[in-house]
């Protein structure tokens, strides 16, 4: 404090807090400390009590999941297990299939006409119809024929000189 002005200012006494303010604060502190303590006590007690509950819930969840998977495996045809055949049964099935196949081939050959036996049964169409082979008469450009064996240059015969 250097000068008189500062001394004069500091001579004024500050108004202190009213007693009821301090008592209100002390009461609020005690209340909140009690609440905080109770909350922490409940939290710690809650941790101990909740363990069996969580364990039971976990078991229930696992059981439900297992039942769900079991029911799906019974109803879903994709998950059916393929029956296993003994080698004898497999041989029987194979022989039966072979006999049926042969029988079908024999019947088919009997039903077909003789002319069809040599010719191909069906001409395969090309995938693109625009590229189908055109008749020979159409293979001409407007300017003149460009394709066809009749427009080949004539075969020229050269005299063969006999070596004799």
């Amino acid at each position: 404090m250097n000068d008189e002005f500062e001394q004069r200012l500091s001579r004024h006494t500050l108004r202190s807090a009213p007693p009821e303010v301090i008592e209100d604060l002390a009461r609020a502190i005690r209340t909140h400390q009690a609440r905080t303590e109770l909350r922490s006590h409940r939290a710690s007690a809650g941790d101990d009590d909740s363990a069996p509950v969580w364990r039971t819930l976990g078991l229930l969840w696992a059981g439900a999941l297992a039942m769900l998977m079991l029911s799906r495996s019974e109803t879903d045809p994709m998950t059916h297990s393929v029956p296993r055949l003994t080698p004898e049964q497999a041989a029987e099935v194979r022989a039966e299939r072979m006999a049926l196949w042969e029988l079908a081939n024999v019947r088919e050959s009997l039903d077909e006409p003789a002319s069809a036996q040599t010719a191909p049964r069906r001409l395969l169409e090309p995938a693109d119809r625009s590229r189908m082979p055109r008749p020979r008469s159409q293979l001409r450009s407007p300017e003149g024929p460009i394709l066809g064996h009749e427009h080949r240059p004539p075969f020229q015969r050269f005299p063969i000189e006999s070596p004799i």
Partner: protein
Amino acid sequence: MNRDPSALEDLCREHTPALFPFLLNLTRNEADTRDLLQELFVSLARHPERLDGVREPRAFLFRSAHNLALDHLRSRASRSRAHEAAGQARADIFNLPANPDDAAHAEALSAALGELPADQRAVVHLKLWEGMTFESIGRTLEISPNTAASRYRYGLEKLRSLLRSLYNQLH
């Protein structure tokens, strides 16, 4: 600081008499001062770990109160300036002496302090009425001692100019 539940109450009883006028000087409103004190000590009751490692409880409490007051002033400024002006008129920071001249001077000083910016007001308060050094003020308000000294000088000059006419009348 220990975490004994009664320690916080002891702190409250010991330091609230000084914190109350400090906050009243900053907020210029008694109801706001009570609310801020409640907020300060209830927060410490909920989180006693904040007092762990505190070496100077008085400085810590003043710093916390100062920060709360600044936050409050910012929010109040954004809410309503008219409310602030009304609160400033009713702030009785000093005990009113029986002598009318001294009472008038106290009221004039209280009003003049309200004219200072809050940061200067805090430094002037801690220097003049808490008797802190600039180093101590710097630690409390988390500013450098030089900053504290310059804020004090500016604040005192403004008070001098505001109160000069009153001094000339009285003396």
